[in-house]
Each structure stands twice: as C-alpha cells, then as structure tokens.
C-alpha cells in the first residue's frame, strides 16, 4: 500500500453563514486521485454531517461545486488534491464576492441576476418552423461567439474579480462574456439594447483588465478578451451614433 493512502491531510473548512463564521479543522485520509470535492464529501459523510456545500455532476459540467481552495477559486470536482495541497494542508472557503448561505454554499442569485441585466438571453426573430439559419463555423463572428460560449456558470471568474469586490453593481466577467458571445451571434436581434445594457457605469468599461477571470476560468475561456470586445463595440457604436446625429 502506498503512503498516499494512509497519510492524513489537515483541512481547514470555513463554517458559518451570512453573519460570519470561522474555520474548523479536520483530518482527512489522503487517497490516490482524490479531488477537493472528495475531501469535502468525506468530511460530511464521516466527520460532520452538518457541513453544507453544493455539487451536482462531479465531472466539470454543471458549475455548481466551485469554492475557494487555498485562496484561489477552483472547480472542486476537477481539482486534484495533489496539485493544490501545500505541506499537507488545505483551506477551503465559500466563493468570494457572493453572499454565503451556509458553510461552503453561496447564494448565486445576484450572479444570475446580472446575467439577466446584461441581457444574456438569446433573442431570435424566427420560429422553429422555419429553416435552420446557415451559419459558417469559420466566419469571424461565429468564431468569436464560440470562443466565449462554453461557460458553465461556475462563478469562478466572478470570485476572482477585484472589480466585483470594489463595486457590487459591476456586472462581472461571466455576464459580460455571455453578452459578447450573443453580440457575435448573427441570428440574435437584441444587439442594440444589449449594448446599452453593458455600456453603463457598472458595465464593461468598469473592467480594469486584471485578468484573474481568464487566469482561473476552468474552461480556459477569456472573459477579459470578451469584455475588451464589448469595450470596442460600445465605443464604436457611440461614435457612430454621434456621427449620425450630427449629419442626419
């Protein structure tokens, strides 16, 4: 039997609610190919049944198990303990920048509300009875849309963003990334109102390009690139409108 199956990991888990909390320490046996989600589940099943956390698919598709691991936001189901553990110690906290419901479970309401504020829903002009729109996968618009489309709403980018922490109204990387994806969808018809929605004080121009979102996105998306695209689009739209109003 290898040492890894008998060694113990010291895990500091944040316990509390929206009013505050503190860390509890647990000793968890180390296993081969163990993920952070495995650690949390082991604690709940063997040491403290009252530990609250959120997960669903366990394979990196649903985006529900993100937590702060040693201070960095990560999808816990796909984060191997071996890669993030330091000196046999782990610190697990709820996602930053979101209100805590209990222990490691955050309230995602504001995160999804901001998706709606950024008009993250596709608005089409055709019905299912009409022919499928011919879209070339090689067109620049489709490539730009595809580059931003694989978001799983895990809120890791939201937790890594200091601008969200500084300005609670800021729409955040995920919502703006979604808006950019839709702006590049040639079938979408809500481009004008969406641009207005993301151009405001809490929109794309608030981003300071710190690029933590791109650094920690588990799907290797680049919300900063999307936000930069929105900045260009809103600026050129503003100049175009100004030119037209003066030369109408």
């Amino acid at each position: 039997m290898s040492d890894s199956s008998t060694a113990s990991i010291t895990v500091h888990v944040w316990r509390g609610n929206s009013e505050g909390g503190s860390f509890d320490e647990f000793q968890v046996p180390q296993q081969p190919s163990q993920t952070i989600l495995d650690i949390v589940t082991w604690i709940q099943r063997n040491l403290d049944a009252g530990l609250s956390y959120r997960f669903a698919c366990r394979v990196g598709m649903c985006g529900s198990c993100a937590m702060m691991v040693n201070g960095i936001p990560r999808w816990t189901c796909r984060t191997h303990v071996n890669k993030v553990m330091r000196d046999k110690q782990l610190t697990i906290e709820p996602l930053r920048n979101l209100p805590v419901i209990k222990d490691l479970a955050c309230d995602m309401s504001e995160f999804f509300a901001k998706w709606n504020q950024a008009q993250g829903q596709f608005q089409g002009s055709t019905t299912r009875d009409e022919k499928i729109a011919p879209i070339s996968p090689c067109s620049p618009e489709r490539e730009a849309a595809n580059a931003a489309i694989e978001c799983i709403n895990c809120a890791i980018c939201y937790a890594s963003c200091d601008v969200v922490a500084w300005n609670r109204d800021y729409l955040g990387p995920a919502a703006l990334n979604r808006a950019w994806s839709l702006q590049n969808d040639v079938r979408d018809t809500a481009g004008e109102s969406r641009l207005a929605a993301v151009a405001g004080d809490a929109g794309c121009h608030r981003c300071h390009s710190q690029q933590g979102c791109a650094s920690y996105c588990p799907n290797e998306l680049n919300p900063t690139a999307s936000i930069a695209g929105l900045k260009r689009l809103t600026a050129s739209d503003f100049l175009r409108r100004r030119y037209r109003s003066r030369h109408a």
Partner: protein
Amino acid sequence: MKAHRKQPLYLAFLLHRISGLGLALFLPLHFYVLGLSLQGDATLDRFLHWSQQPLMKFVEFGLVFLLALHFFGGLRLLALENMPWSNRQKNYAALAVAAAFFVAGGFLLRAF
C-alpha cells in the same frame, strides 16, 4: 498579497496603479519647482544646483522609471482595449516593464 492576486497581469495592474499614484504625488512638487522661476532666477538656480547632487539623480531615475512604466503600461492597456485581442498579454506586460527599465537606465547612465 491574497492568493488569487498572485498572477502576472494583476502585478501589471498594480504597477500601473502605483506608478500613476506616484506621478500624481510628484506633480505638486513639479509645479512648486516651476513656481520658483516666478520668484526670480536665483531661487530657481539654487534649487537646480541642489538637484545636481548624485542622490537626486537616483531619485530622478525612480521618477523617470515611474513615468516610463506608466507610459508603456498605458500603451499596453490602449492596445488591449482598442486592438484585436492578442493572447500575448503577459509578454506585453513584461515588455512594458523592460522598456521602462531601458529608458530609466539610459537616463541614469547619461546623468553621470
């Protein structure tokens, strides 16, 4: 520094902020020295003579470094926001710091 901030482009953001703040703090001093000229040649010359000492050259090196850092960092941000996206953002940030060192180092070499 918090763990999530320990990535090169956050450092680039921080350097841009700190250099900007440093330059903003320097501006009142700059205007004060310019104002000395209004008090007469002798006052300004006295200050300019005082500023020729070696220690002041190192202080000026720091000032030129901050200025160059903010200038090249600003160009990086303008390119990031206004040009088609490039995945070489870390390279550009490193280039901005290197260019700032080059300019400030050149100033220091010429100062003595």
